């Protein structure tokens, strides 16, 4: 899609300004129902677009992403723009600086339409934890768009943006991509700098694209990838053009599948995945069964590591430095602390009224697991299990080039269906979470649609590759996409 729009821009069939305005028209028409956006940045977008038009008018060469309108998840900072992470505690936060991904996209001339809805601080699988409301699935407005990057997914799926950025800590790019019929890529841990992304669980967080096609994902990744001195975990990178690896050629490639992952699915979901496997066989790939004996512990491991890191990262929201500050003048029943009373009450009240229930639940869980006497039993244990899960992948990758699984156990579920039971909600991430635990790159690709609760809904499959080998999963994803055209 990006390439076609790029051609139109350079052939002067449309101006970048008009293109952006067209997208704002769609937003105006559709977003009342969908609620993908929290904030629109129309002035910024038109200013960015006019710069591109001036370049084209001067006969200068433009980049592929130049003038192409996209949406940014609202946990990524754009200088001067409100950035809430969908939390009341950041309701009035105007980002004082740009995230590195934003700087990089600006360097290649991309246009930002606005900031998209998410689960509060990216904790959730449906955007139902947003303090501002739920984003509905454009394929069925009674269903969730997935989460936490549900606003980004719905924006692209509804034609309210060409591409979008999301963040993915346990599946937050891939699960909404699957629910909304999109391509969603979580790069290798370290491939993309997180500077300016509101930190959630730092050993798991990554930023990546949600797009309609694999090529579009490759184009956005090429723009945002690379080392950054502001994020010490970002890895060396050589300025790759990921679109170049989309050759369509996968003859002889070995794709691993995990039997239990497929056996446990519902009938129609299983049919969808088996059809994907058949397509890959026809394209000349070899399907090989692999075992990941420890991967069944990924979810439990995640729900120790993630809350622990959350409890530490979110300690910064204290009602003193920035964000919501509340003192309700009532004395708290949590007396045990040697802090001066007024200071303590401000901490307690700001975090009581500023954070939503799920965020509080994770902070509490993480604080418990890290509290005196429990560290060895929880965090340390989880990090050891993490090593075992990683070893499973190292073993598997000796024998196969990549691993194919479903992205999520089902298509999009109904709004309200899982909100009362946190554990049921967590299970939506059972297949996606392992890639974050072991750090490998993973992509969700739309597979055959699935009949589900009387509806035909999008259903994605996931390809996990070797560390820092985004090329391979993009190439294999693309081969499926063109075979199905």
């Amino acid at each position: 899609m990006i390439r076609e729009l790029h051609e139109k821009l350079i052939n002067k069939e449309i101006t970048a300004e008009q293109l952006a305005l067209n997208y704002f028209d769609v937003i105006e028409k559709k977003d009342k129902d969908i609620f993908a956006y929290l904030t629109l940045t129309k002035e910024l977008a038109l200013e960015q677009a006019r710069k591109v038009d001036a370049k084209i008018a001067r006969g200068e060469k433009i980049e592929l992403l130049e003038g192409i309108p996209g949406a940014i998840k609202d946990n990524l900072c754009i200088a001067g723009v409100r950035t809430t992470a969908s939390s009341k505690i950041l309701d009035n936060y105007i980002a004082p600086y740009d995230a590195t991904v934003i700087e990089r996209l600006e360097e290649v001339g991309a246009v930002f339409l606005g900031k998209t809805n998410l689960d509060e601080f990216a904790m959730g699988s449906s955007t139902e934890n947003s303090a501002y409301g739920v984003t509905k699935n454009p394929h069925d407005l009674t269903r969730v768009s997935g989460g936490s990057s549900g606003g980004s997914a719905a924006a692209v799926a509804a034609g309210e943006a060409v591409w979008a950025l999301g963040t993915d800590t346990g599946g937050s790019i891939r699960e909404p991509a699957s629910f909304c019929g999109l391509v969603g890529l979580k790069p290798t841990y370290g491939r993309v700098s997180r500077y300016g992304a509101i930190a959630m669980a730092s050993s798991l967080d990554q930023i990546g694209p949600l797009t309609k096609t694999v090529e579009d994902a490759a184009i956005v990744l090429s723009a945002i990838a690379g080392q950054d001195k502001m994020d010490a975990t970002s890895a060396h990178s050589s300025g790759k053009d990921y679109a170049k690896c989309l050759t369509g050629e996968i003859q002889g490639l070995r794709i691993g599948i995990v039997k239990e992952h497929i056996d446990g699915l519902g009938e129609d979901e299983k049919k969808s995945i088996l059809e994907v496997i058949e397509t890959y066989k026809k394209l000349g790939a070899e399907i090989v069964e692999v075992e990941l004996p420890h991967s069944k512990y990924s979810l439990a491991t995640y729900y120790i590591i993630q809350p622990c890191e959350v409890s530490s990262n979110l300690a910064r929201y204290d009602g003193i430095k920035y964000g919501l500050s509340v003192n309700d003048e009532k004395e708290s029943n949590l007396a045990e602390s040697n802090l001066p009373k007024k200071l303590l009450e401000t901490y307690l009240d700001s975090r009581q009224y500023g954070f939503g229930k799920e965020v509080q639940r994770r902070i509490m869980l993480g604080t418990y697991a890290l509290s005196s006497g429990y560290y060895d039993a929880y965090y340390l244990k989880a990090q050891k299990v993490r090593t075992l899960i990683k070893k499973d992948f190292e073993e598997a990758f000796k024998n196969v080039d990549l691993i194919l699984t479903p992205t999520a156990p089902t298509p999009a579920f109904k709004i309200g269906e899982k909100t009362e039971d946190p554990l049921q909600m967590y299970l939506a991430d059972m297949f996606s979470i392992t890639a974050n635990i072991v750090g490998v790159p993973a992509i969700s690709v739309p597979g055959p649609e699935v009949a589900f609760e009387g509806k035909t809904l999008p259903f994605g499959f996931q390809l996990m590759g070797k560390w820092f080998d985004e090329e391979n999963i993009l190439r294999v994803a693309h081969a499926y996409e063109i075979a199905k055209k």
Partner: protein
Amino acid sequence: MISTDEVKHIAALARIGLNEKEIEKFSHDLSSTLDWIAQLEEVDVAGVLPTAHITGMGNISREDGVTDFFEKEKIVKLFPESKNGYDKVKSVL
């Protein structure tokens, strides 16, 4: 089972104010999540080293130089309370 007293202790450590109803609810929620997490007890991790960094990077350093941050005013604007360009904290005496 996480008792309500434990919930109060954790909430104080986490600096989250809770009312009595929330304390009850957390006692239940945390207990059920911890019961579910307890499945990790069956994993034998004898001799296994914990993962510190998943892709194995280490010792990333940069020059320890002084740089200026040019957006100071924007940060001052974010202070809930400020005085003479400083963030005003609560009385600690």
